[in-house]
Structure formats: structure tokens, C-alpha cells
């Protein structure tokens, strides 16, 4: 087994899931509770990675990471490194690619919270922030946990975007799924099988946990 790839994948997925948790809470809150008319636009943009071919997403990310794009120039000026073919670039790409898997379960959970509970909280003197922390968030625990687990699992399994943006550099951008591809290319079938079996067991466990948490039939949230 390619332990280096495994450790890299775990770091990548953990970091991405943690950042997405912080991003998805305000984003899901805004999508769920804002009365503005164009929330649907933001919802569509957030969900875009669900339907977009990973190579398309990867291509545009690669272009925007390049030295001629504003993002690429900014990153280069700030860190002195390129985003393309680096671990940092992989993190940015994975954030975008896994965003819907973090936001949608959280938004679904928020919208399930009875609006009169939020109103009751307000009439009892609670600010919107306190209402969120004491009422909405505790009652959405399962959705938030589902979002974290799904975004972690989805980042572990991504392939197309990683290949486009990160390439295949051992210890830098070679994740487990790339590693399997590599092993098959070099005809190491036994090795590929071990890694694949490991990922299969991992994915199945994730789904067991998610469904165990939810204990409801497939809801609106996307599955990895």
C-alpha cells in the first residue's frame, strides 16, 4: 500500500472538511434564511460541481491557477509559489469540488428547524447569533456532521480534478485514487486491489455512519 499517498489524502481531506465546515455554516445559513431573490443563483453556483465533469472544473481551475491569471499572480506574489501542481492548489480545488457536499446537508438541516422556534427565541430576547448558536445549530447537529463526513469522503475519492490540477507528484499531490490509477498503469494489480479494497471499506463505513445518523430514507442531500 502506498502509505505516503494515504497520509497525503488524509491530510488533504481533513483540511478540506475542516475549512468547508467553517464555510458551509454561514453559506447554508444565508441560503436557507435570506429573503433575497437571488439566493437561487448562489445555490446553483454552489451546486455546480455536482453536475460539472471534473475535467471541466479541473481545466478552469488550472487556468485560473496559472501565472497569467489574477489568482495565480496574487498567490505567487504572496507565497512565492505556484498553485498549480502543489498541495495548496489541491486544497483550493478540493474546496470548490466538495463544497456542495458540505453545504447541502447543512442547509437541509437548517430548513428543517421549525421557524416558530427561531421566532420564540427572538421574542425571548435572543439576538440572531444567539438564536443560531443555541437553537438552529444544536437542532442541526446531524446535518452538520453529515456535511463534514461527506465532504471528507468526497475529497478522499476525487480523481479528475486532482489529476488536472495536481498531477501525480509523490508526497505532494499523489492521493490514493491517483495511486490506484498509477498502480494499474504499471500493471501492479495486487497492489491496486489492496488500495481499492481499502477505499471501498472506507466509503462503505462512511455511508453506514451517515445513514445511521440520519435514520431516514435518502434525503435531499447528495451522496458521495
Amino acid at each position, binding site marked *: 500500500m502506498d502509505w505516503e499517498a494515504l497520509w497525503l489524502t488524509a491530510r488533504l481531506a481533513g483540511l478540506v472538511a475542516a475549512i468547508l465546515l467553517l464555510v458551509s455554516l454561514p453559506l447554508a445559513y444565508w441560503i436557507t434564511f435570506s429573503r433575497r431573490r437571488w439566493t437561487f443563483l448562489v445555490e446553483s453556483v454552489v451546486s455546480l460541481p455536482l453536475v460539472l465533469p471534473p475535467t471541466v472544473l479541473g481545466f478552469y481551475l488550472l487556468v485560473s491557477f496559472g501565472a497569467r491569471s489574477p489568482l495565480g499572480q496574487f498567490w505567487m506574489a504572496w507565497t512565492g509559489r505556484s498553485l498549480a501542481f502543489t498541495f495548496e492548489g489541491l486544497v483550493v480545488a478540493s474546496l470548490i469540488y466538495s463544497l456542495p457536499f458540505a453545504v447541502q446537508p447543512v442547509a437541509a438541516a437548517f430548513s428543517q428547524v421549525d421557524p416558530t422556534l427561531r421566532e*420564540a*427565541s427572538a*421574542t*425571548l*430576547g*435572543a439576538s440572531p447569533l444567539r438564536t443560531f448558536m443555541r437553537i438552529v445549530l*444544536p*437542532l442541526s447537529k446531524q446535518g452538520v456532521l453529515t456535511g463534514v463526513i461527506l465532504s471528507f469522503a468526497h475529497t478522499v475519492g476525487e480523481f479528475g480534478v486532482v489529476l488536472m490540477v495536481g498531477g501525480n507528484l509523490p508526497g505532494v499531490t499523489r492521493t490514493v485514487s491517483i495511486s490506484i490509477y498509477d498502480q494499474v498503469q504499471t500493471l501492479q494489480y495486487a497492489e491496486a486491489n489492496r488500495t481499492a479494497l481499502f477505499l471501498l471499506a472506507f466509503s462503505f463505513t462512511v455511508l453506514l455512519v451517515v445513514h445511521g445518523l440520519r435514520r431516514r430514507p435518502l434525503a435531499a442531500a447528495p451522496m458521495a
Partner: protein
Amino acid sequence: MTLTARLLTRLSPGFTLDVTFQAEPGVTVLFGASGSGKTTILRCVAGLTRPHTGRIAIGERVLYDSQTQADVAVQERRLGYVFQQLALFPHMSVAENIGYGLAALPRDERRARVTAAAESFHISALLDRRPDRVSGGERQRTALARALVTDPDALLLDEPLSALDYAIQRHIMDDLRRWNEARRIPVLYVTHSHREAFALGDRLIALEHGRIVASGSPHEVLDHPAQAPLAALAGFENLFDATVMARHEQAGTMTCLLAGTSTELEVPLGVAAPGAPIRVAIRAGDILVSDREPAGLSARNVLPGTVERCIMQGATVVATIDAGARFTVHLTPGGAETLALRPGPTVWLVIKTYSCRVTGPRNSAEP
């Protein structure tokens, strides 16, 4: 402190809420059918719904004024609100629910206030339980305690007791009255039950289609309902369209003919001229039933009829009796048994003149 409100807001096409009222300390009942705008009034006062134009104030404190653009946020209005669905926080214990609005207080004081409120509403034994582990009446008490423990400037109650049986309603209401005796804040109590309105209200405001159609003491408004829909809500089960046939100034009565029948009733003398359309409202419990023709009565109206239907509703026998017009009569089970009341035989209905309330004709909007 007095709550004053003037509200104008369009809720849906063809439905405009347009009311102006005052609520003094004590219980003011907002009475009306569902969809008459009662809950919207509470929501506007609480700040959960913004009226189109208007002004809401408690004493000198202005909560909303469309002219000066004042609009105090919900969480700063210092009002207690008990929702129809109660909206207890399911993930908190009864004690945490009650203490929720006291976040600004030090822990010890908060605990003392929660304990005191729980005692006033007889739920001290349940403080550690979750809301789904207590009875319906106890949930109502928890919701009331949670709203009142914050010492609000006014209390807004949206049909808080309608799901409970009468005995528990009375008990909780007594607790609420006792609680308010010392504080004297205005309580707006929304209901469509005339029994609750009689039992609880110091004053009553009757609403219909977003407008106030009557106000006064519950007895003034509900005993002499000016409009037919209000009469039905006020517990007058029998409502008849009728035409004035003759006025008897000396006797203080007039004779009227029930529409579509040959049945005549003597009703109290009103302002209606002969030939004028009126509506007659009679409570089902105000009609006597006899199994033989009664004689020597002061009652002016003795009508023969046949029993069509007899059903038990709770502790009341509801009989439908065809005496030209179809009357609904309420009897006690004992009374029905004495008469051996069953569909078929002829019976006589006895109705006092003063049990017949004359209201405006159908569709006359103003009293």
C-alpha cells in the same frame, strides 16, 4: 401601562387587516373565526410581521411607527409570546426552556427566577425533563412560565389553551390571573372559543375579515352579537333568517316569520319595521323540550316538532328537531332520558322571548 395599536396591512389579495385598539392592563380577548386576523395582530405587535403602516406602543415606549420609521427589533421589544404550537425548544429541559430568556442574568439569580416561575405554574417537579416527556397541560404551563419569567411589558397569547380540556384550561388561567394581579400588564388573548372568552376576558374585541366589528365586555359583545358570523362563534347554534310580521309595542315584542317556513316566533321588540329582514339567534341550551303540549307558561313560543336526530357529544345530548325550521337543542343526558328522547315522536319546543336575540340581516356588515 396600556398597549395601543393601529395597524394596516395587506395580507393576501382581498384581505386587509385594518384595526385600531387599546389594551389596558388585564386580559383583552381577540375573538374571531380563523382567518379573521387575530394571529396577525399578535405577530405585528411582537414584531414578527411588519405592518404596512401603523403605530404600536406600550405606554410611552414606541415599538413601531411607520411615520417615524421606528421599528424595534423583536428581541428588544420585551414582550412575552406564547405560540399556538408553544414552540418549546425540544433539545432543552423544562428548566432550560424557562431560563432561556434570562441569559443576561447571573446564574444564581436566573436559577431563583426559574424556580419561582415553575412554582407559580406548578411544574417544579418537571424541571429536568425534556418537553416531549411531559403532558400537554404541563407543556402549556412551561410555555407560559418561559414567556412570563422575563417580566415582559405585555403578554401575547395565541390560543394557548385551546388543545386542553376545560378543567385544565380553568386551572392554568387562574394561575395566569394570579400572576398578573401583582404586575398588571396588558394580556392579549387570541381565541375563537366563546367559552374561553367568557371565562378569561376583562374586555373583548371581536374581529371579522381583518376588521373590528365589536368591542366591550365579553357579555356585552357575545350576548348581543350584532352580526350573524359573530353570533355563530358566540355560541348561538340556531340562526334563522326571518321577516318582521308585526310589532307589539305594548307587549314589548314583535312577531317574525322564519324564512321558508310557516313558523312564527315572538322576539324582543327591536328597531326593525314590519317587512324588514332580520336574523334571530338562539342558544341551543336555551330551548326547553317537552313530551306533551305544555300549558300555563309565560314563554311566548311553544312549537310542536319531531325529533330527527339525537347524538351524544361529550356530556351533552345534541338533538335536531324539525319544528317547521330545524332547531338544534342541547340537553343533559339526564334530561334526554326523562323524555325518552328518540327520533320520531312529536315534542314541543319552549323558547322564551328573551332567549331570541335579534341580529342584523345577513350581509349587513356594520352594526
